[in-house]
């Protein structure tokens, strides 16, 4: 059984929480004690229906204020796949939350209210999904019950969204007309929209092809940890543990280790369950090398004829996640794969308006939830790929050295 991670974006008003509640409820992933609690609260609040949105309310502050503060993770499974939902709130700190949720997602689900059509927020969500290279985007046109399940409304919104999405880099775009409240086209095909010839949302989530979303071409193995048992049984054992970030590793492969540039071959790929014939992303394995060379955490194993860019100059789109704005010339810590370095901000080329995609070249800083193109100079060389080519070797965190807080997310250009 495969695992699909997807992110949902939208505000309370779009019916996002109701949709998630509906998915969980109709796939029988809600337990009786959870449902009873929700029924009780719905009654107390005088809601007309059992308010499925309450299933996703987490913290006390959120219930009190009727808002969602933070990304919440939810789990459900069908006989075909298991799912992890990163449920990202729409209105508060939207960029910070959606960027976080989308970073690990194979699919993004954007909600549009059929009565309102495409609004600023829909464009913003589509842009962020494309920036974060989420391979599949599903637009759920919700509240179809409130527009009499009218096909022309659905088609109009679909065309408008397509026109906007053409300006973005979106691999796979699909549309589903739904009513989360009544369950139309969520888990089961709706009888109210005979004109719709597609599948239900759940059916799409179960069937969407995600296997080819990973990079199986460029071999990248960031060394995470060196395993040296120093025991009698494994006296001379020296293995390099890590998670495959790209390509396929096989025993006998000729490899080069960065930054030393020394060449050797893979002697074996070990796991606690025995040796492997090959390893691919995102497997966690231990690689042994034929030659006894100096390799440590932060080094990168790749193929001699296919190497990442080795450079101290990083050009990246940076999403700013902190209340304290980006400091020009400021020094920050950078965490990229298993490598940590210090970096200085050299330039902010422009700031991008996430609603209009307009580039403001006169911008002088990035504030919370803003995104811009930034030039950084690192203290040591980094081994990077373009984010569009590899989401693992193309991404990094910007960390405030004084507070230790994660203040930015970088996507290598």
């Amino acid at each position, binding site marked *: 059984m495969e695992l699909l991670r997807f992110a949902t974006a939208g505000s309370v008003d779009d019916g996002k929480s109701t949709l998630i509640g509906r998915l969980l409820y109709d796939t029988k992933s809600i337990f009786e004690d959870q449902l009873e609690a929700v029924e009780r609260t719905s009654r107390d609040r005088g809601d007309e229906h059992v308010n499925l949105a309450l299933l996703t309310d987490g913290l006390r502050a959120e219930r009190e204020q009727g808002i969602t503060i933070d990304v919440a993770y939810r789990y459900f499974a069908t006989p075909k796949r298991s799912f992890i939902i990163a449920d990202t709130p729409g209105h508060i700190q939207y960029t910070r939350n959606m960027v976080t949720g989308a970073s690990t997602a194979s699919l993004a689900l954007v909600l549009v209210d059929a009565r309102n059509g495409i609004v600023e927020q829909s464009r913003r969500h589509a842009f962020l999904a494309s920036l974060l290279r989420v391979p599949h985007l599903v637009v759920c046109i919700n509240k179809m019950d409130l527009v009499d399940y009218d096909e022309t409304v659905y088609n109009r919104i679909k065309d408008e969204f397509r026109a906007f999405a053409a300006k973005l880099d979106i691999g796979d775009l699909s549309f589903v007309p739904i009513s989360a409240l009544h369950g139309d086209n969520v888990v089961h095909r709706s009888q109210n929209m005979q004109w719709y010839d597609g599948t239900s949302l759940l059916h799409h989530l179960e069937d969407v092809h995600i296997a080819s979303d990973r990079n199986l071409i460029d071999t990248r193995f960031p060394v995470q940890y060196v395993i040296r048992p120093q025991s009698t049984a494994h006296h001379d054992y020296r293995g390099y543990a890590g998670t495959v970030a790209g390509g396929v590793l096989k025993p006998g492969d000729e490899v080069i280790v960065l930054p030393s540039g020394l060449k050797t071959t893979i002697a074996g790929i070990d*796991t606690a369950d025995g040796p492997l014939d090959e390893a691919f992303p995102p497997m966690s394995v231990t690689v042994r090398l034929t030659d006894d060379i100096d390799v440590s955490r932060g080094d990168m194993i790749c193929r001699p004829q296919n190497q990442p860019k080795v450079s101290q100059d990083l050009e990246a789109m940076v999403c700013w996640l902190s209340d304290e704005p980006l400091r020009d010339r400021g020094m920050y810590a950078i965490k990229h794969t298993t490598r940590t370095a210090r970096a200085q901000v050299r330039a902010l080329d422009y700031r991008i308006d996430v609603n209009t995609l307009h580039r403001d070249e006169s911008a002088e800083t990035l504030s919370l939830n803003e995104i811009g193109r930034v030039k950084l100079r690192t203290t040591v060389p980094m081994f990077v790929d373009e984010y569009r080519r590899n989401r693992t070797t193309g991404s990094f965190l910007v960390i405030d050295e004084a507070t230790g807080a994660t203040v930015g997310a970088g996507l290598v250009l």
Partner: protein
Amino acid sequence: MSASTTYELSSQQALEAESIHIFREVAAEFERPVLLFSGGKDSVVMLHLAAKAFWPAPIPFPVMHIDTGHNFTEVLEFRDRTVERLGLRLVVGSVEDSIAKGRVRERPDGIRNPLQTVTLLDSITDGQFDAVFGGARRDEEKARAKERVFSFRDEFGQWDPKNQRPELWSLYNGRHHKGEHIRVFPLSNWTELDIWTYLAAENVDLPSIYFAHEREVFQRDGMWLAVSEFTQVREGEEVVRMSVRYRTVGDVPITGAVESTAKTYDEVITEVAATRVTERGATRADDRLTEAAMEDRKREGYF
């Protein structure tokens, strides 16, 4: 774990790979990690994954048990047996000692579960631990659904849910100052069913009380509690002997058993897959105190 030619991992393999990545990241970046090991099924899976992450080397950190003194005998025996088998160092933080030293006061109801937080935080400080592995899962409870994999704790061990570090990709930020620490949850993305399926697939040993056995129990607040030296049967409560098993393992006085005849992993999985009540809702009195019981305890530094 065998590689298939389609280059796809099963859900189980993907979860295992993610957890192993987290263990190695902590071992590489922290000076003094420790793993919380109670003998409960989640901590058993954690320890099993840790052993796999560093194989053929031994697990490079000790394990810690916060002992309330109200344990199931079978679980304590299992704890000691496991620690010995893996050659680990066991640190025990004793709630009884904390009471004796006056760090905490015994509650009128005698329930020690809420007292554990003080013992836990004292033990973390005394051991100078900078990373503490916990077996909490996000599917367990709604406050936990918002918990990070690397969860920052201030010098008082407090969790601030509104001020968490964003966690992106598989990049974990473990920065902290002296006296602060990071709670690490390698099983964040596992569900109860994942845990059971994995235990069965890997044929991992568990304390016997997780499987059906005959026990004297009585009903209180809708839960089957075990007759033991830590529980007083009140008037009107009828003691019956029946076949039960435990879905979670906490202190004897607050952990409810479920009626069951499931004696093997396969039988347990069939029951878990069909169950309609969450494991905490069914079997844990400590979560029923208020709607935000877990959130409140977590803020103070609980597991």
